Each structure stands twice: as structure tokens, then as C-alpha cells.
């Protein structure tokens, strides 16, 4: 089968990752998959406000997802809407299992993710970017989180759907977030119809895609400090 952009079924779009793009935030990262570009900034751990929401046992994770007005062909009305509130929550619960929140009692960790360019798979790009930004902020984590969408296009399981594929009649979209070391899925959504056999195949493809993204994240994180490896402890 040929996909609209000529990719193989297990091939993701072009990947690019960069860490430390903002100097004022505690941690930041950019993640690009094809035309979808996500930027993430992390603040914290800091004091939790309002004070009565703080947890004496662990940190509170807050996520804010936003799409820029110019990220889509037709101008999006700026500000939070139903969709972005839902995605903020989805991203929060996808990242939570990887972060050791017990390290930071009575604190808040704030994650801000923005989409500068949207071409399907924005929530997945956001999760990948946010995980890098969290690591860049020096937050204690059990594992990284990598994320990609899988799905069913023209009756065939594929990985990393583009907007073009998503718009085909009868397409199923399955966003997956995955912790590569623990081999655990932290996000699994399903939009459309799929039979169990295809579902298993799609998940397998998605996990393979996540592993590729993990390698890109790892390289980006190490690149930022490439010259720092000497004399950190010494003198």
C-alpha cells in the first residue's frame, strides 16, 4: 500500500528535537514531527498556589496546552477552549507516571506546551516535547515519555498519521504515549472503528515509533550539554 506522502507503514515523518530553547524557563524544548511543531516550557518545582490545593505528600503537576492562532489554515480563536482544556488534562495524565512527584512535597510543577504549527498528532508532539523540557529542568523522573499516533488508514494499520490521512473517510486515530524503559503505555485514546487484530498491529507500530522518538529525545538532551562533560566535579 502507498500512503499519500509515500511513506512506509512503519515510517514516521521527519523528526527534529531541540532542548533549552528558552532561557527564562527552568526547562524548555522543541519537538517537530513532519509539519507539526510543539514547544514546551517547564517552571518549577515552585510554591503551589492556591495554597489549599497543595499536597503535603507530593507535587502537583499542572499542564497547559495551547494552539497558536496561526498554527492552522483557518485562524483559530486564541485562548483556552473545550479542546485545549481536554488535551491539557490528557497530557498531564500521560506525563504523570514518569515523574517522581514524591520528591517535591508541597510544590507545583507547571508545564506549558504550545503548538506553533499543526498537522495532526499535536497531543503526541506536545507530550514528547514536554518530557524533554521536564528532563531539562532537572526534575526527577523514572523514565522519559515518547509519544506518537498510530491508526488505520484505508483498512491498513499505519504509524504517525498526517492531517491528509486523518481526513480520509473511515480513518481511525490512536494516540499512544509510551515509557521506553518501563515498557508501559501512559496514554491510549481511540477515535474511530477498528477490529482487535488491526488494533494490536497498530499498537505494535505505535510502540516502535515511540522508540524511534525516544532516540531523538535522548540525542537532543545530550547535545545541549555536549561540552559540559569535562570538569564538572573537579577543581
Amino acid at each position: 500500500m502507498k500512503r499519500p506522502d509515500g511513506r512506509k507503514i512503519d515510517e514516521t515523518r521527519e523528526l527534529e528535537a531541540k532542548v533549552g530553547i528558552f532561557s527564562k524557563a527552568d526547562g524548555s524544548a522543541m519537538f517537530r514531527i513532519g509539519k507539526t511543531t510543539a514547544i514546551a516550557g517547564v517552571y518549577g518545582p515552585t510554591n503551589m498556589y492556591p495554597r489549599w490545593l497543595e499536597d503535603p505528600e507530593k507535587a502537583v503537576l499542572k499542564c497547559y496546552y495551547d494552539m497558536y492562532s496561526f498554527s492552522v489554515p483557518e485562524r483559530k480563536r486564541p485562548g483556552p477552549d473545550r479542546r485545549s482544556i481536554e488535551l491539557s488534562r490528557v497530557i498531564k495524565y500521560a506525563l504523570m507516571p514518569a515523574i517522581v512527584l514524591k520528591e517535591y512535597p508541597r510544590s507545583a510543577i507547571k508545564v506549558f506546551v504550545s503548538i506553533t504549527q499543526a498537522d495532526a498528532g499535536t497531543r503526541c508532539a506536545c507530550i514528547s516535547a514536554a518530557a524533554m523540557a521536564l528532563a531539562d529542568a532537572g526534575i526527577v523522573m523514572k523514565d522519559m515519555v515518547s509519544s506518537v499516533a498510530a491508526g488505520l488508514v484505508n483498512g491498513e494499520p499505519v504509524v504517525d498519521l498526517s492531517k491528509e490521512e486523518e481526513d480520509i473517510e473511515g480513518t481511525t486515530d490512536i494516540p499512544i504515549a509510551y515509557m521506553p524503559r518501563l515498557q508501559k503505555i501512559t496514554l491510549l485514546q481511540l477515535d474511530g472503528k477498528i477490529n482487535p487484530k488491526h488494533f494490536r498491529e497498530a499498537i505494535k507500530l505505535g510502540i516502535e515509533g515511540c522508540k524511534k522518538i525516544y532516540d531523538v529525545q535522548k540525542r537532543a538532551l545530550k547535545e545541549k550539554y555536549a561540552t559540559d562533560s569535562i570538569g564538572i566535579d573537579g577543581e
Partner: protein
Amino acid sequence: MGNLLVEEKKIVIPGEEIADGMDFLPSVGTFREGEKIFANRLGVVSVYNRVIKVIPLAGKYRPVQGDIVIGMIMDVGFSGWSVNIGSENTVNLPVGEAVRERVEMLKSDLSKFFDIGDIIVTKILNVTKSRIIQLTMRDFGLKKMRGGRMIKISPNKVPRLIGKNGSMVGMIKDATKCEIAVGQNGYIWVDGPVEQQIKVEEVIKMIEEKAHTSGLTDKVKEMLEKGVQT
């Protein structure tokens, strides 16, 4: 016999496997799962005997008992102050640990001792298991700083700024005739002639930027000499 999978002084990311085998011991920045040891933060691997630790490259200051830190008063309460020492939460400094005389707390205004925005040199008395931090000012040299300015750098770069037995910071002090107090939390207080304060700030920012390079002392010396001439 276990084996080390990552060389020393290499950068690891959270969740990356460092060693395999029960004869290695996980220390700060690492954890054990099964027989393997993993990093739990972004940092540099350091192996001492068979103890593995990860020195963080980023992140906020983690208070340790006995550290001398510089803090800024954020709030004045009825029985103490909230102090920002660059850690995750603002920290409480009770009256009893800060003022020698007896204070009628209900009657007096604590801002006559320390007010919002004041800079203090203080010591970490204790860090509890649930990460409640206690501060004290009952020790030699712990006081409120008057005038001057505060510079913030990453707490991971403080050892480089101080140098061996304070050689680096001593050099800056001698060359610029400024008073400098360096806290373990990366907050630095500087006082002296204004031009010299700016000079010190420039030098400190340079040290922070180039902390990982060798021959830093020479670079600082050169920079200081240039400043004296102009």
C-alpha cells in the same frame, strides 16, 4: 560481577541504565530496579569505588543541612519570615532563630528586623524527611546584608566560582575591592563601588557560562586586569 554500561563523566538522561549487577551501589540521582541501576535525572555519571551517583546538570537548589545560603525575604508574618533561597518552596525563618532579644510577637512589627526585599546570609539548620526546611541565623557571620546587589547563578556552578579554598572568589575580591558573599544556593551578594559591582557581575556570569572549560582562572585574571585599566 556487575558491569558499568556508561562511562564516567558521560551524560545520562532520566531512566537511562547505568550499571547492571548487585555489586554496585546506587547513590544520589540514581535508583535500583531489579539488579540494574538507572539514572533518575539529567546529569553526569560519577563512580567512586563502586558507588554510582549522578551529578545534576540542571535543577533547583536542594538544601543540605549546614549549608550557608543567601536568601531574600519574601514575606513578613506574625512569628517569622518567608525566605526565598532558590529551592522549590519558600522557607520559614522563625523569630527565635533570627533575633537574639526577646520579642513580643503580638505587639511588635517584625519588619523592623527584616523587611520584604532584604538580603540575609543564613544557614540551613535541618532538612526533615518530608522536606520541611529550617533556617537559623544563630551562628558566626550570619546577618542581614545592607546595600549591594544580588546575582543569581546555577547552584551547580558554585564550586567553580569559589575555587580551591576560595581562590577564585578571593581573586575577584582582591582585584575589584568588592565585598562578595557566595551562598551554596547560587545566590551571590556583592557590594562596593558601582562600576566594580558591574565588573564583578560580568565576571561571575562569564564563570557560570564557561564553568566546564579548563583554564578558567587565567580567563578570569585576564578579564579582571582589563577591567582595572579602563
